[in-house]
């Protein structure tokens, strides 16, 4: 059921774990319509005790609007409560501009790619 819903929703999340780091790959379009599902899927993973840090890999994220900013800020609060760090990598130009406008880069670090983001966390975790 969930899979079917996802197929219609034009946004897929792939969730990976690496030590205490949760890596979420977003694939497709993140807008008001898809935000609730992404939010739920990420929260189910974040809530696990083993998770401390979060990397969002936006390589396959073709589109995002301000609904995505809400999703990112909400997840940031959860990770912050766990004293973890949240990182974003592989954003396209428009998404980077959108996040810049929202001031999110003051609290969330960005990296060119997933391995750079991972290495930065391995130093601190």
């Amino acid at each position, binding site marked *: 059921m969930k899979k079917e819903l996802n197929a219609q929703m034009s946004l897929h999340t792939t969730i990976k774990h690496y030590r205490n780091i949760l890596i979420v790959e977003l694939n497709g*379009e993140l*807008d*008001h319509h898809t935000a609730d599902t992404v*939010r739920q899927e990420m929260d189910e993973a974040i809530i696990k005790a083993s998770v401390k840090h979060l990397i969002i890999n936006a390589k396959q994220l073709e*589109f995002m609007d*301000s609904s995505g900013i809400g999703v990112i800020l909400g997840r940031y609060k959860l990770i912050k409560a766990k004293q973890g760090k949240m990182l974003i990598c592989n954003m396209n130009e428009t998404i980077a501009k959108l996040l810049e*406008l929202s001031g999110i880069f003051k609290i969330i670090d960005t990296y060119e790619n997933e391995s750079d983001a991972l290495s930065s966390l391995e130093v601190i975790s």
Partner: protein
Amino acid sequence: MSSNDMKIVFSARSENEKFARMAVASFIAYLDPTVEELNEIKTAVSEAVTNCIIHGYNHDASKQVELAVSIEDTMVTIQITDEGKGIEDIELAREPLFTTMPDGERAGMGFTIMESFVDGFEVESELGKGTSVRMRRRILSSNVLFN
């Protein structure tokens, strides 16, 4: 002077946020915009349509949103209109981070993003009557020739 226009009316359903931005992108594609120009316009359209659905109509899918696009040479004008509840204080609504839904994980960035991603931006709203936003953006990359 070369002009072209279209108008679509659709249900205020969140599925149609994607439909609306794809429709605009398809309509202006012949102007040959860059990927970034197209993405910025799609983002602005998405913000405006989302506002109609969430704020104008409070998720009442029986209501309708109107999307009108016109092209004059390389200038694209997009007008997105609802007949919803209207905005009480437009100046306040345009403030970055202002949101009427602080608990709903809404960023309060919709108008700021629209204004940043287009060249001209106007909002008209009347309480109980509805809201209309008009955005203009010139496609600088266009190599379409007009005569």
